[in-house]
């Protein structure tokens, strides 16, 4: 009787371990994917220029078009609805936020948080971009777009895993050799 009871207890423990291990692997893969998405979004946001400035030899980003492209692609890649809330077939379970930083030859940086301008100011090359939240540090020497994504509540089935996990990923894309 004793081996049976102990065996059943170990069986339940093993089941919990296997399920949690699978959920952890899925979470890790989704965090790596989030990083890839951040890289892709930084590239997309940096593809659109203000061509009147470009004709004078300055790279100044067209933020409206860049943010439109970024938001469209973000919804497609992360399976979000119009309000950036994950769809049922998406992995994350809460609203995904983004922050995008534009540094360009206008020598004015602009920061957009979910599409709204939240900060701006002058800067000069070289400039050290520092993120206190993620410790993401980048020396800005050329026109650069930095995208930070914040995704919450990964899918863990075990109740003992805390559900207040937020993953933050940053990526940048810069234009060199103009």
């Amino acid at each position, binding site marked *: *009787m*004793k*081996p*049976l009871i*102990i*065996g*059943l207890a*170990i*069986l339940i423990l*093993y*089941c919990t*371990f*296997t399920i949690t*291990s*699978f959920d952890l*692997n899925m979470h890790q*893969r989704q965090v*790596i*994917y989030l990083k*890839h998405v951040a890289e*892709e979004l930084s*590239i*997309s946001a940096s*593809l*659109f*220029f203000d*061509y009147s400035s470009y004709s004078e030899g300055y790279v100044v980003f*067209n933020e409206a*078009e860049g943010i*439109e*492209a970024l938001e*469209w*692609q973000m919804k*497609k*890649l992360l399976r979000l609805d119009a309000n950036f809330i994950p769809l049922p077939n998406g992995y994350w379970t809460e609203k995904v936020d983004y922050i995008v930083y534009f540094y360009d030859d206008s020598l004015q940086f602009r920061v957009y948080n979910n599409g709204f301008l939240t900060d701006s100011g002058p800067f000069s090359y070289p400039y050290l971009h520092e993120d206190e939240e993620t410790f993401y540090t980048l020396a800005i020497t050329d026109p650069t777009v930095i995208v930070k994504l914040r995704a919450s509540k990964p899918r863990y089935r075990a109740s003992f895993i805390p559900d207040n996990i937020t993953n933050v990923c940053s990526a940048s894309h810069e234009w060199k050799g103009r």
Partner: protein
Amino acid sequence: MKNLIVGLCMLLLLMIFPLQSILDIVNKHKMDRFDAIVYRATQIARTEGRFTEDNIQDLKNNILACFPDITESEIVIDVTTTPKYRTNEFDEREVIYYKIGVPIKKIIAANRFLGIPDSDNSALYIKEGYVLSEVLP
């Protein structure tokens, strides 16, 4: 004797889990490699404006090297092959679409012991998305 029999039965049942852990590690490694292969192919496609034949063949070769148990016909590739261009304003019609999938042939380690047929013990792992072209018209 009774304890021995019960113990052996429980041992048999519990042996499934280490095997499942090992299979999970192998599948995770394969899927992570597949993610990296697809990401590389999409970045190449972005710089070329489309998925070229060389890029698609390179993608297939890399996938087959990572998944020795599958054939080329089992790889799902549905990608944009017509040229897409970078525009002054964002245009959904000028994005490069990709849907690349590969079968994962063994998900549960001891599927036959648990009564799961081999046909149900596989799934298609698909990466789908869009990238914007960097090619100027």
